[in-house]
């Protein structure tokens, strides 16, 4: 397997009147062709900023450092016009809220035809035909009739299916799915996850799946990167992380998923909240919330996990 995307020491900071705000503070990860990487973390940990940086969709005031390479091509230094040749065709994105991600004034068909014709030299009729094919592929019943539907006439799950069809129809090398199931009902969530799994099998899709929900990531990801406070806390094969988490934060996350592990009594939660991005704690950023923290955790920064995975922790579990 070859590496499709490699991110090295990526940093994202936003300019604010009170000085720069570092949302992502030096993360490294890589995605193999055909693999699904789950990017997991709480709100405010920098997941979405990472996703935006991968698609060049950061707001104008944002600054990126480090390197993002797609098939060896450096993306962080791309100009806006160059980005346009990457978006859709190379990297495509599915957003969190399907209710607001479709233009309310355009029909489903208009969305698809427009996107297809942007990336391929198709006639209108051919693009319509291809649109029907894509709608069928994402499991929308009676796709030909649905072309004329407007977003408000579709349910949330249907809209997310349309969004997925839109994101995939340009034939991207990498799909970034930013919490694609978070805004949906649980039953619909499962359907969308099944759909993504099916499409992955059909298209050999490479995907970064961003979520805060370990129960969701379990179903789709091969590898998992757990982020905490702008840094990578733990990385590794999905099965290993879910069965034998090493970082206390990952363990805390897993413990707080209901029904994930057989357990009695009150559902545990991680004490405290994600620290403010203006004021990261010193040393290991998790140490104020960590039960295993000692003096060294507050003073020095643990090394980030290497390419083989591991935890950024001075006291990892399960390691002698």
């Amino acid at each position: 397997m070859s590496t499709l995307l490699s991110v090295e020491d990526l940093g994202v900071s936003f300019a604010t009147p009170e000085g720069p705000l570092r949302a992502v503070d030096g993360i490294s990860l890589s995605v193999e062709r055909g693999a699904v990487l789950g990017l997991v973390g709480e709100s405010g940990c920098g997941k979405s900023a990472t996703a935006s940086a991968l698609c060049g969709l950061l707001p104008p005031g944002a600054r990126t450092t480090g390197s993002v390479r797609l098939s060896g091509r450096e993306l962080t230094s791309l100009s806006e016009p160059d980005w346009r040749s990457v978006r859709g065709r190379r990297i495509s994105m599915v957003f969190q809220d399907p209710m607001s991600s479709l233009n309310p004034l355009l029909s489903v068909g208009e969305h698809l035809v427009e996107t297809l014709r942007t990336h391929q030299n198709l006639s209108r009729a051919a693009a319509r035909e291809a649109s029907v094919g894509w709608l069928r592929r994402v499991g929308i019943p009676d796709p030909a009739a649905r072309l004329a539907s407007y977003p408000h006439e579709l349910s949330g799950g249907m809209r997310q299916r349309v969004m997925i069809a839109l994101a995939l129809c340009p034939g991207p090398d990498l799909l970034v799915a930013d919490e694609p199931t978070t805004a949906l009902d649980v039953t619909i969530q499962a359907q969308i996850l099944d759909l993504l799994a099916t499409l992955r099998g059909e298209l050999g899709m490479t995907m970064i799946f961003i979520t805060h929900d370990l129960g969701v990531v379990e179903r789709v990801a091969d590898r998992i990167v757990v982020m905490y406070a702008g840094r990578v806390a733990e990385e590794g094969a999905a099965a290993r992380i879910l069965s034998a988490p090493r970082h206390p934060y990952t363990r805390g996350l897993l413990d707080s998923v209901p029904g994930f592990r057989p357990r009695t009594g009150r559902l545990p939660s991680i004490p405290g909240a994600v620290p403010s991005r203006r004021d990261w704690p010193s040393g290991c950023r998790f140490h104020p919330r960590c039960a295993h923290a000692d003096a060294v955790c507050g003073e020095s920064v643990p090394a980030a996990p290497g390419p083989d995975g591991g935890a950024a922790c001075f006291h990892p579990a399960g390691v002698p």
Partner: protein
Amino acid sequence: MKPALRRFRSVLAANAPARISFWVLVALYLSALLAPWLAPYAGDDESRARSWAPPSAIHLRELDGSWHAPFVRSVSYSFDDDALRVWSEDSTCRFPIRFLVHGRLFGLGNPVASPIVGRDAVVGGDAPAANLHQRQGRLYLLGADARGRDLLSRILYGSRVSLTIGVVGVAISTLIALVVGGIAGFAGGWVDSVLMRLCEVVMLVPAFYLLMLLRAALPLDWDSRVVYFYIILILSFLGWAGLARILRGMIQSLRQSDFLAASRALGLSPWRILWRHALPQTFGFLSVQATLSIPGYIVAESGLSLLGLGIQDPQTSWGNLLEEAMSIAEIRLHPWTLLPGVFLFAAVLSWNLLGDALRDTFDPRSLS
């Protein structure tokens, strides 16, 4: 555009006031187009002997009690003790109303001698048949103005100016506002600053003084076609800046929206995102805004005419026709001079009601 048309039709089907307004406007614009054929007289065809003639009485019976197709009498006036006009009809002949005469939809036919009057009524001993052709009748369905010109004809000719000046003016100012506001809101940064300062400069120009200045600077004897275009120019120049600022704000807030981010993520070009995704979101607002400002343009044109900047006699517009109805004394003596106002009102109201229907058309959510 096809789905929009279909939507418009279903909106009209559901909304009776809008449907009526639509057909009223169609009728008004058609009659403006067909004015030379619909109007019984040319707009400047005057008959000073019939100054301020009231609307013609339409008769069906002759003096001997016989029935005829609708006809009118020739009228003349004398002054009473208060120096007010007293109108009397000349019963010696009748002027039948004929359709499709003189290349117009309707008009008056040749005079026919009245049967009962006979020779006795003739002054000076001429046989009525001999001097009949010298008699002239005028058909004033809506009365006449000070120079005896037919008000209906003048309203019809005037509608060509009044009905188009608002539409063309609003179209031009809206287009400028769309381009400037759209680019400013979408691009942001220094482009935004420069364009918005430009808007502010335009908004700072005091409209009234600008008009006075132009009045002083421009020649008086311009052809009214030229005047027509420069009225449009002035009004659109004054009108676009405020709208551009609103649009820029709308586009700016739209920039935060998920579906614009999504269309960027799908690799669409900025122009395409702006024209197809961002600006159409404002069309609902724009259609209401535009239809609401059309009346303003119509009224502004009459204001300009009043200042001597607008369409001048003998050319007509509803605005300068209404100037004759500016004093209570005039309205009391010649109430029909208010009639152009009725047309103005109908056009303005119809545009407003149609504006609502247009807004519903551009917002598919309103249908289901």
